[in-house]
């Protein structure tokens, strides 16, 4: 029997993976993937809890997140392409102009 | 007459904005006329003021944030009336004496803006409004020191700004907390000072709030050991900045003690009486000693200000009508005298571009008129009777004698040490032979300088001989403040103390 706990554990594992990805990856594209994983981990959590309580607002939230994630990726990839055209790399370390 | 206070507060600002369209050559004349009109307005206020009424007059109120009881609330009483006149008068005089050419337009407008904030501080009866003006006054002064100062002006300006600003931060917390206390007690919000006067606070709360307000006021006064911004600010500020800083801005702190600390926290004020008095005594003596060691004329006067402010604090904390009235009068007299002395230092600085005593000597021979005026003001500064300096100093010390004769004796040695540094300064710069070649051709005072200095010298003498009209007006409101204290005092000790210091005779 798959219970709520399983879903939440899965969500946790995915979230951790995403975090590790965010921290370790230097490639901007990979960073986007990691963020997507993070968001999806949260989505899983939301949906599972929503089902568990029989409250639909969690699932609606998930939809919102998916929509926002999609638009974010669209803008983000656009910027990425632009950056690649300008600097010829998608490496994170090339973005250091905001140094304090 | 209904809106005269708003007019007095905002006239310089509005006129100052018009100043932007005046051309550069005429802007000083424009500034003088504005300051003169403003001064006349404050004189009209004095004439219209009813000296038999000790309460707030010409009160104006319009709500700003009604939900929180914040309002545009102005009023004047005997305590603030003369400080307002002092502000407008000193602004006028300092504009007359102004001879800076660089960015004159900005400077004149800044001074007018500063005038608005100073007058606003003294006239506000709403605590939030007061705080706004209190902090706003820093900005023009920061600009004046930073833009027209000399040498280390940026350091001095920033030090001045941050120090005083940091000091006030805690006061804001105190203000908000007091407002909240008022809300708890009455169910409505109010930041109006007359409302707060009705609020009786528990002793512990008083202690904390007294501390929060004290820091802000102490930095402004400036009290030892929070005084180190002052010598830098004076050292680097242009003459006009020093005049306004010493003559008016320092008085904001002592005024606030009388307006807030004493009537709002009577028990705490009595509780902290001795620590404050000891700090004040240290100020008097320590600053006088440091002044004696200075080599720069302006620094001597800067430190002498600290020394005099110590006596003002003592007078305030005497908590009797003699002491407080005396201390307010001393604020006025110190405003006039220190302003004039800074102006005189400016005169010599303009000619020689140095303020070091060792560069002078024998000035009495080359500039007799200058020496004479300096001499008169020096005597006022050391508190010679029949000059303006004596009345306030005498009354302040007289008042505090009732509290503690020991401290009065120690602080009274300020009159000795004051004579020591002032006479030494005078001797080194004015007496002796003219040694330096460049001093031999110095010009005596010109018309512009005379025009600025003569009114001050006249006031020094007139107010020294006949201070009564001012004293009685102040005294009325001071008595009312003391009554407020007596009414609000919680502890029997406080009541006993207030009764004792306000009566003649008895043991000891």
């Amino acid at each position: 029997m798959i219970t709520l706990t399983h879903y939440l554990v899965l969500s946790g594992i995915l979230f951790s993976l995403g975090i590790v990805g965010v921290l370790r990856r230097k490639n901007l594209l990979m960073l986007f993937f990691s963020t997507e994983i993070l968001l999806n981990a949260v989505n899983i959590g939301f949906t599972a809890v929503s089902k568990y309580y029989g409250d639909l607002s969690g699932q609606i939230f998930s939809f919102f997140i998916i929509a926002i994630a999609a638009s974010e990726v669209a803008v983000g990839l656009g910027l990425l392409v632009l950056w690649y055209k300008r600097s010829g790399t998608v490496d994170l370390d090339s973005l250091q102009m905001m140094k304090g | 007459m209904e809106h005269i206070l708003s007019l007095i507060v905002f006239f310089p600002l509005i006129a100052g904005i018009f100043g932007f369209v005046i051309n550069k050559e005429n802007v000083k004349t424009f500034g003088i006329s504005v300051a003169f009109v403003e001064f006349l307005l404050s004189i009209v206020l004095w004439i219209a003021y009813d000296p038999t009424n000790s309460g707030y007059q010409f009160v104006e109120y319009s709500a700003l944030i009604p939900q929180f009881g914040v309002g545009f609330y102005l009023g004047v009483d005997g305590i603030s009336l003369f400080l307002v006149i002092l502000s407008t008068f000193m602004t006028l005089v300092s504009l007359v004496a102004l001879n800076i050419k660089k960015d004159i337009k900005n400077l004149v407008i800044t001074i007018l803006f500063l005038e608005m904030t100073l007058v606003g501080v003294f006239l506000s009866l709403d605590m939030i409004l007061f705080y706004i003006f209190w902090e706003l006054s820093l900005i023009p002064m920061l600009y004046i020191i930073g833009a027209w100062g000399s040498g280390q002006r940026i350091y001095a300006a920033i030090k001045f700004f941050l120090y005083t600003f940091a000091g006030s931060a805690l006061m804001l917390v105190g203000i908000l907390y007091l407002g909240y206390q008022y809300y708890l007690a009455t169910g409505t919000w109010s930041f109006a000072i007359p409302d707060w006067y009705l609020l009786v606070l528990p002793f512990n709360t008083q202690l904390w709030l007294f501390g929060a307000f004290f820091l802000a006021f102490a930095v402004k006064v400036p009290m030892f050991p929070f005084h180190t911004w002052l010598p830098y600010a004076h050292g680097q500020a242009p003459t006009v900045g020093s005049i306004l800083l010493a003559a008016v801005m320092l008085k904001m702190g002592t005024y606030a003690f009388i307006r807030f600390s004493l009537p709002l926290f009577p028990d705490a004020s009595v509780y902290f009486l001795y620590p404050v008095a000891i700090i004040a005594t240290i100020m008097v003596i320590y600053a006088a000693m440091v002044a004696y060691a200075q080599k720069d004329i302006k620094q001597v006067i800067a430190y002498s200000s600290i020394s005099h402010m110590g006596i003002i604090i003592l007078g305030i904390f005497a908590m009797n009508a003699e002491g407080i009235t005396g201390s307010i009068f001393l604020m006025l007299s110190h405003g006039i005298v220190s302003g004039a002395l800074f102006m005189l230092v400016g005169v010599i600085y303009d000619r020689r571009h140095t303020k070091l005593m060792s560069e002078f000597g024998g000035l009495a021979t080359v500039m007799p008129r200058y020496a004479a005026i300096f001499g008169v003001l020096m005597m006022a500064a050391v508190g010679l009777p029949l000059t303006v300096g004596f009345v306030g100093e005498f009354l302040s010390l007289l008042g505090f004698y009732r509290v503690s004769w020991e401290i009065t004796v120690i602080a009274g040695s300020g009159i000795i040490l004051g004579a020591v540094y002032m006479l030494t300064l005078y001797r080194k710069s004015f007496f002796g032979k003219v040694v330096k070649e460049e001093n031999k051709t110095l010009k005596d005072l010109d018309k512009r300088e005379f025009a600025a200095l003569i009114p001050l010298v006249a006031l020094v003498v007139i107010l020294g001989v006949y201070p009564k009209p001012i004293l009685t007006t102040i005294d009325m409101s001071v008595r009312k403040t003391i009554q407020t204290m007596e009414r609000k005092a919680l502890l029997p000790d406080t009541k006993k103390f207030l009764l004792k210091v306000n009566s003649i005779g008895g043991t000891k």
Partner: protein
Amino acid sequence: MEKYLFVALFAPLVGSLFSLLFTAKEKNTITAIVTSALLLLSFVSSLTLLVSIHDGLTLHVKMMDWISAGNLNLPFGFIVDNVSVIMMVTVTLVSTVVNVYSMGYMGHDKGYNRFFTYISAFVFSMLILVMSDNFVGLFIGWEGVGLCSYLLIGFWYEKESASWAGNEAFIMNRVADLGMLMGLFLIYWQFGTFEYDKVFAHVGSLNPAIVTSIGLLLFIGAMGKSAQFPFHTWLADAMEGPTPVSALIHAATMVTAGVYLVIRASALFSLIPEVGHIIATLGAFVAVFAASMALVNRDLKRIIAYSTLSQLGYMFVAAGLGAYWIALFHLMTHAFFKSLLFLGAGNIMHAMDDELDIKKMGGLFGIMPYTATLMAVASVALCGVYPFAGFFSKDMILAAAFNGGNFYIWFALFIGAGMTAFYSFRLIMLVFFGDKVHKKLGFHPHETYPFVLWALLPLGILSTVAGFFEKPFEEFVTEILSKYEITIPHATELGLIFLTSAFVILVIVATIYKYNKGGFSKQLENMPIYLLLKNQYYIPKIYEEVIFKPYYRLSTFAWKQIDVKIIDFIVDLIAKTLYILGQKSRKMQSGNLSDMLRWMVVGIVALLALAIFYRPGM
């Protein structure tokens, strides 16, 4: 009569303001003439007042309110009664003479107009001092004369020593004034007023300890102004001022203000005989102490200054012992002969191109006979030889000391009288007789202008005859001052007078004899006692080393070490800490996205931890 009071009081002020207009201009004789005329007017008014007061009038005028705050209400009030009118007459008389004298003495000075401004301002202040009906009014005059004294001592401000002496006088007086100010505060908080009438009316019902404190504090003020030990050093240094100033301020009038204060507050001091005793003892000490320094000094003016100091000691003895009218009498006679002595010294200085060393003079009698005569008259009056003025007043003081049973005070005064005789005639002999040392040194002395000598004549006459007014004077002033009963037998009193006179005359004769023979040998000058006296008991040196220099060092320490290195350092340290913190944390903002993400994760963890572990209200 009030108009005479106001004329007497304000005529000098008008004169001062008038000549003030000319201060920045060239020498203008009109200033001297106008001020002299106005001082004379003031003198005449004072005399008129004296006459009407003698007829039983007392003037008490309130001019206008000055200070009012709290319970304090302080008007400018003036009182002319038997005591103050005596002072007024003395002050205005001496000042008129000095003013006329100065027309000659200051004739070539470039500060001519300024000088007369100051002198008249001084007289005005002095009149306020003596005429006020309250203690604060007295204090106004007190400080006013202090200011004028400062200005006049430092009149030749280009001289380093003159301006230094001016500062010394002002500051030392300030020290004593603090004591007086405290006395005033104490009076106020006991009586609620400063007016003499009211204070003295209630002083009897006060706790004696408080009266003692008031008395002591007021006396501290008096000590400063009258240059009593330990405040005496300023008076000798004050001789840097022009000589007419020394005559007027530092001999006849201002320095006696302390004595006047004690006399004025006699109602208070008579309640506290133990304080009076202290005053008298100190006075006797100063009488001998100052006279001893005059014995060896070679400076013409300083000798007379120490003599003044010594005579002030006599006055304080009388005042301290309750013989107030005698003190006032001596004050008056002293004013006449001492100012005469100083003005005579001024003539000599003029003749000798401001040379002050009496060893460089000698034989001046032939050249300036009138001055010599006047000074001789003044000297015998000072020594107390019958029938000159000093005899009467000084012997009364000695009798009073003996009468009170204070034999040691009497003895001190007796010795002091001998010393006075010695130094006075040492001066006379060295200056006017003996070898003409000045010739070798190339001086060309000459007698001064006749009008100057004529101006001195009134003082000369008064020094001679004033003593005979003893009885009427006593009757006049004891109308308000307490009487002083001499209880010793008349024969004893006469014996004492005889003894003192004989002693004084003996010393005078011996001195004249000795100096005729060529004076004392040089070897004496190496004796330790001589050095001690010559260096004024090393007191100025001690003050310099123990007070002035350490104070300067302490001040510099306070500034350089405490202010800059501790207080300001701490302030800057706070600012610097914040700044350094900012510098360090700048590195967080590397601009690298992955660094930022890491910090973000740290933040998330921190917030999570907070959410898990922090439960408010649990």
